[in-house]
């Protein structure tokens, strides 16, 4: 039993984050939920408390306010066992590529913010000598494509950051888990028509994340590792001509 352990979920309003919260709560974890406009989490908080009879606290956090990160971590009632970051925005590639400010927002939200906050927490975990870091990145970071390379490049940065962090903390007792979802049915992908058999549900992912919570590795869901392997091995002079 994992009684009395705590997970901090950053970006707690996202669909995957809510599914993760339910999964960990059902396994007896207490929850620290951080999000921007955290008042909107009220219903989620009461729901989790009633359903699982665990402690849930909500914290205000803006992933772009890097200077607040240290204070935010200090404000937590206690340092959690696990810290997961589910922050991300898809942006709109065709609009964003014409506007540096928009592009910058996508890059900072998907790369800088998540990396910096997890980096800060990782340092605390390292000092304490225990903890698990979980970052939700994306297969879009594996290779830049015309249709979403701003988002993809930021996720590539985040994936790379997590990889380095894992490498650095290998000898300490701190694990770093990289989650690489392909298509997931969430509000982020609402309106997109996703091919059914390679689209996962949030519950599928929350189960996978829970199973691997203390592992130091990179996780895809079948068949995405194969798909990305294939995509990454297409020679550039062919790749550049493919329209996707």
């Amino acid at each position, binding site marked *: 039993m994992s009684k009395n352990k705590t997970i901090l979920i950053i970006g707690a309003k996202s669909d995957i984050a809510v599914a993760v919260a339910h999964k960990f709560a059902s396994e007896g974890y207490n929850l620290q939920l951080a999000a921007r406009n955290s008042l*909107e989490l009220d*219903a*989620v908080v*009461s*729901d989790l408390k*009633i*359903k699982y009879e665990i402690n849930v606290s909500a914290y205000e956090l803006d992933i772009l306010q890097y200077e607040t990160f240290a204070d935010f971590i200090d404000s937590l009632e206690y340092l959690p066992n696990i810290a997961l970051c589910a922050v991300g925005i898809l942006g709109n590639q065709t609009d964003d590529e014409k506007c540096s400010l928009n592009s910058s927002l996508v890059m900072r939200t998907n790369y800088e913010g998540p990396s910096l906050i997890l980096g800060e927490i990782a340092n605390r975990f390292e000092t304490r000598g225990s903890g698990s870091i979980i970052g939700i990145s994306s297969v879009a970071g594996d290779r830049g494509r015309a249709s979403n390379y701003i988002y993809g490049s930021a996720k590539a940065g985040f994936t790379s950051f997590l990889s380095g962090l894992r490498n650095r903390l290998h000898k300490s007792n701190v694990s770093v888990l990289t989650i690489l979802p392909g298509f997931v049915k969430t*509000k982020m992908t*609402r309106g997109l028509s996703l091919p059914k058999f390679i689209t996962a549900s949030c519950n599928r992912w929350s189960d996978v994340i829970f199973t691997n919570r203390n592992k130091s590795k990179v996780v895809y869901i079948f068949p995405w590792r194969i798909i990305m392997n294939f995509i990454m091995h297409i020679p550039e002079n062919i790749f550049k001509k493919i329209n996707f």
Partner: protein
Amino acid sequence: MNELSGWGRFPKIKTKELTPQSESELLEILRHSESYIPRGNGRSYGDSAINKDLTITMTRMNRLLQWNQESGELVAESGVLIADIIDTLLPRGWFPYVTPGTKFVTLGGAIACDVHGKNHHKDGSFGNFVNWIEIFNNNNEVVRCSPNENSELFDWTIGGMGLTGVIIRCSIQLKKVESGWIKQRTVVNNNLNETLQSFYEHKEATYSVAWIDCLAKGKSFGRSILMLGEHAHKSEVEAKLSNYPKRKNKKITFPFDAPSFLLNNFTVSAFNKIYFNLNKNKQSSYVDWDTYFYPLDSIGDWNRMYGKNGFFQFQCILPRELSEQGYTKILSTIQNKSSGTFLAVLKDFGSGNGCLSFPKEGLTLALDFKASQKNIEVGKELTDIVKSLGGSFYLAKDAIMNSSQFNNDFDKEEFSKHRNVAIKSEQSIRIEL
């Protein structure tokens, strides 16, 4: 654009569907929409929760907000499923007072249809256990209504098919139970008269419902099995069993649309004969809540059994004194037109509530029909019979009625004061409600 249908998969209608996740997101949509209908989990059978322009599905507003373990009062968002409530609160000794035949309905849908269960004759319908409702009314405001506060709006909302406004959250009263088991016993009735009599004789039972063999002829005409149930006391539960059993995992899922020739009069009649004889000799027994209340929930997508064209339900109520005459006529019509109805269920109702609610004193019959042109004609014929006897129809099941068949015996002027004119369903347009 999305194709939506009710649980009967007939009719199928193209619509834009939105699924807001928070009150602010919902209000943003409502304030900018001129024609829409709220939808729960899509378990009403026909087109009562579809609007061609915009259908707002509430299933993501599904959070429990407050729970009082002492009093059994639950406050929750309207997209919460009865299944979620049971999963969470049955282990703490509480169960919904009223539940329909599937646990996959939302609270908002249960209120809008004022659903009933096997205990209507004793406890009434779902609306009886609603403490208050918060609704986006026709003035574009979120207001609370209850039997004491905005009581007229409350009465029009219970059973109001969502037409008074989008239900955002509500407070309901649950029932204290000692276990998750039901003590069940069956009574065999050999003809229609015995069937009707038997409800009267067993009116003290908490739960009662009759399965009726609508294809039996001659002296067995109207034969049935009346199933009675009581919540089991803690002391009755076998020591080796869990006092509050968990929900059953889905055993099977209907993997494809059954070929439509599979359901014909011969197969249905054979099924009915076997079912009757299997149950005839059953003694009293204890069954878990899931098996007792929701036998069909254990077959995923059972609505595919009727083939790809779907099916429709027919549920009417007749005043008690006209029941024997009316149901004789209805059953004979089914037999003569030979339509093969798979599930026929009879149930008696106590007094009703809510201005537009379906349940009222009398006997109700529910039938399934494969959606075919022939059966739609039979359904219309049955509708006329019921209408001529002063009966009425359950809107949550209807897919075929027209405005003249709809029992519009209610105060239209009063209703128009509370009706939100932006809210329309394909059904409300069809029957001019």
